[in-house]
């Protein structure tokens, strides 16, 4: 091979390597962004469901089936929540994310807050099945406070 060809080959290899690294980096970012975006959708579903539940509970005679359905959704989402925060899925992956770095730096604290939610949401699910609306209203409030407790520590304040 001519000396010039070797030079071009080396340049080409270097470019290819560079692109692979950059491309690999971009792919890793998009996994974090994917997780962050999915998390945002899940939390928004949680918010909508909570509103729907509270709207129903505002009625004089809330419908049991509606309440049970929403409580079940919240319970399911609460169970999934800890899996929504893989490393690298914070603001670095999705700039609009309100996830504070403390989620990962204080993993024990975050885990405890998530566990509190699971407990309260599980309780809500049970109370909903029993059908006592007064008790459901109290437990819905308690579940909301569990959400709030985590948000105060780990979500960006607007």
């Amino acid at each position, binding site marked *: 091979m001519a000396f010039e060809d070797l030079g071009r080959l080396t340049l080409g290899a270097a470019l290819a390597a560079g692109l692979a690294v950059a491309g690999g980096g971009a792919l890793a970012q998009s996994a974090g962004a994917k997780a962050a975006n999915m998390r945002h959708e899940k939390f928004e579903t949680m918010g909508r469901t909570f509103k729907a539940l*509270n709207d129903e509970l505002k009625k004089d005679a809330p419908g049991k089936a509606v309440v049970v359905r929403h409580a079940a959704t919240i319970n399911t989402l609460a169970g999934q929540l800890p899996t929504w925060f893989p490393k690298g899925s914070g603001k670095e992956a999705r700039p609009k994310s309100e996830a504070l770095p403390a989620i990962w730096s204080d993993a024990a604290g975050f885990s405890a807050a998530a566990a509190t939610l699971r407990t309260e949401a599980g309780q809500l699910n049970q109370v909903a099945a029993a059908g006592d609306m007064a008790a459901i209203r109290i437990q819905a409030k308690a579940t909301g406070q569990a959400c709030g407790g985590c948000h105060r520590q780990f979500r960006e304040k607007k």
Partner: protein
Amino acid sequence: MTTVDPVARAARAKVWDVPTRVCHWLLVALLGFSWWSAETGALEWHRWSGYAVIEVLVFRIYWGFVGPATARFSGFVRGPAAVLAYAKSLGGRASPDEPGHNPLGALSVLAILLVLTTQVVTGLFAVDVDGIESGPLSDRVDFDTGRLFADIHHWSFTILQILVVLHLAAIAFYLIRKRRNLVGAMITGRRRFESDPGLVFAPAWRIVPGVILAAAIAAWVSKGLRF
């Protein structure tokens, strides 16, 4: 030759009646409390504060039609010509002797009442981003609409803050430049006049229907317009 002694003629007369003064200072306190309760996340208290504001607003609007001259909207709301003429007089040190809100101050009263009404009404339909805290009428609208009401509720408060700052600046202006103590007058209800304006005030019984109406509306709203 007789000369009229201006000091003898000058009088300290009543200009603001009790209901008007109570409404004013209640709104000051409730605005502060609503702000604080929202900032600290005490949303239950925030809602109650809002219902109290609704009560005061309803009464004040009622009083603006049946109260004494200085409380009535017809007593101080003026057209653009009067507003301009008054604005031109602001440069001087003298302050007109007419009792009650001047034409420019009248605009400020209307603006504050309007924005306060917007504030409470948007609050009734608002929902927070988590779907946890919401106004009593928020179940009548969907999540996205409730969020829009919440946004307007926040922007409206910014406008309210600006109006309050302007209001305080105007009061400071009157105190320093015009040597007129408006705060004292809104507390005691009295001020010095060149000559007694001879104001007539409303009979006390008229307060009662207003209070009942205001309380009934606020209670009904707090229950989400349900009985």
